[in-house]
């Protein structure tokens, strides 16, 4: 999401061109659009529908069917709790509650494939493995404080 707006437009156009503006590449195009823009806005979806010559209803219908597509900008700080079976058996539901109460944005993964190190929580891209409640609480608190700390201070 670092490219300027004009650049993003061009990259999306390239992605569509690579797929010859074919309607059956819609999901690939949506992936590309979300990667460039961070989320799929209504105007972006309308633009994709126009370019691929699909009814806007179809584009919205497909986009909303799949969990990975977002329709609002991603939150600044997210804690993603894996709720796969292995993590659940090791108490991940309790960890999700801790995140809910912490003020962080909770995301849920259905299985991150790190079942051997369950339970897994990923805070802003940093993974905690075999996570205990105390560990998670302190991690969430640290980040919250460093976020509010004056500029230039460590953290």
């Amino acid at each position, binding site marked *: 999401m670092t490219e300027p707006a004009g650049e993003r437009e061009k990259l999306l156009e390239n992605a569509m061109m690579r797929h010859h503006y074919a309607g059956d590449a819609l999901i690939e195009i949506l*992936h590309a659009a979300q990667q460039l823009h961070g989320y799929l806005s209504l105007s972006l979806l309308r633009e994709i529908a126009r370019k691929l010559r699909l009814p806007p209803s179809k584009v919205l219908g497909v986009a909303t069917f*799949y969990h990975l597509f977002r329709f609002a900008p991603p939150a600044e700080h997210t804690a993603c709790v894996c709720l796969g*079976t292995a993590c*659940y058996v090791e108490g991940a539901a309790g960890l999700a509650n801790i995140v809910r109460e912490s003020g962080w944005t909770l995301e849920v993964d*259905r*299985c991150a*494939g*790190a079942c051997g190190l369950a339970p897994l929580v990923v805070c802003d891209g940093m993974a905690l493995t075999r996570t205990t409640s105390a560990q998670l609480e302190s991690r969430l608190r640290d980040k919250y404080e460093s976020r509010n700390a004056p500029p230039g201070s460590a953290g």
Partner: protein
Amino acid sequence: MNRETLLQVQQAERQRVALLKDRILCCTVAGCLAGGAGAVRDALEGEVAQRGRTAQIEVCGTGCLGLCSEGPLVRSSAGDAIYTNVTSADVSAIVDGNRVPTIGPGHPFFAGQRRIILANSGQTDPERIADYIGTGGYRSLLRAVTEMTPEQIIAEVRRSGLRGRGGAGYSTGLKWELVARQPSKVKYVVCNADEGDPGAFMNRAVLEGDPHRVLEGMAIAGRAVGASQGYVYVRGESPLAVARLRTALEQARRQELLGDRIFESSFNFRIDLRIGAGAYVCGEETALLASIEGKRGQPVARPPYPPERGLWTQPTLINNVETFANIRTIVEKGGDWFASIGSPTSPGTKVFALAGRIARAGLVEVPIGTPLATIIHDLGGGVPAGYEFKAAQTGGPAGGCIPATHLDLPMDYDSLQSIGAIMGSGGLIVMDTSSCMVDIARFFMEFCRDESCGKCIPCRAGTVQMHDILARITRGEGVNADFGMLEELSGLLRAASLCGLGIAAPNPVLSTLRHFRPEYEAHVREHRCPAGHCHMSVLSEVTA
């Protein structure tokens, strides 16, 4: 690429590796990466470079070494040793070859395994095609294209007795024959890599650790059934698998192992990637095909089955990742060799993702028919001290629970089915006395409720109703009539749902009701959770 160049590359790679003093392989797939394996690899590379020994010692990333609970794992080829729980502080000792503790190939976790699908995982660098060719890779494709007729390939696969590893266990050879028999000129080969069961990471580990093995299997299938286009439909939540597949496809194309006139024959085969966007139902084959076509991933009624009418209405062969991963070895060593492994009705090996309440968790590959007790106690080291084994859950949300009384059960398709569980794709979650079976049934029903595509009413409404009942029971608000209601709804979902998701959704409930009914009764009649897991609102109100 032709026969000579393939053999040259293989020869050169083997010589290169033989000249190395040591090859240090760091597991760099999902589990170990989450544990910090990326930093370990960088530190190892730095250490070797600093000592000026890059000519003698190679450091590279590799696929899953198996023992995920002890990760990050590093393997040294010199001593055939595996280092566990490695941190950056250990790198100097590893390069010297004297870091302790180490485990060797005789460790019980490895001794009980037989690796065919995972043969290269932990041995080669998945991002280098030369590594794969060095292990004899693409030799089977060479054979299939230049020395075998499509009929001979199919006959070999039939002789192997290989059954689909996606869960249903349909004969792979029969399926190939069905597609091959179709008169249509355009046919497709699709690899189902949309492994979505929570607690299952076998396919993902194969794609991340040895992607070329799957591509080679697909190309051989293409030759056998007469297809020239393949698709890998991979789960969008596995970015590393996607990246490794992209790299592998690019390399295979550049080496002309995929594309036009493979091995200078008239056989053309291309493979494209399709990336899923997070819908569990897309593991169902008709939903998967709809998703490849850019539509909502909703299933349609069968028949016609995809071998007759599949992608863009053309005959389509769909197999699971693990099924394709077996093909190279079947062509290489013959169907009879393969059929001699495992059990007579289900030959070969199966990869299980062993996790949950178990001492050693990770990926294990064992001959089909290995007793559950061997996997859990010998390989997995049993449940943590102070607890008792209670159940093993197989097959994810479509599967069932195996109680302790069936620990000696051979893990094959038919035995599992006989007690209300399924082989599924290979998730194996161990639960001990701290796990509540009613809550596990609720957990899976919640999953099915969330993932129901909404097309047919039995599944859309039935999963909601069943989840509500189970949630009520775990809150201590269950009533006696709930038992009958759960059974009735289960029958309805099984009989009237459109696809496997709805048909199989009641399985965890029915299997826990069958084997753990007293636990349900304790929740409903005594407002008590025997595992001490569920928070009983009724009870807490009484005691408050």
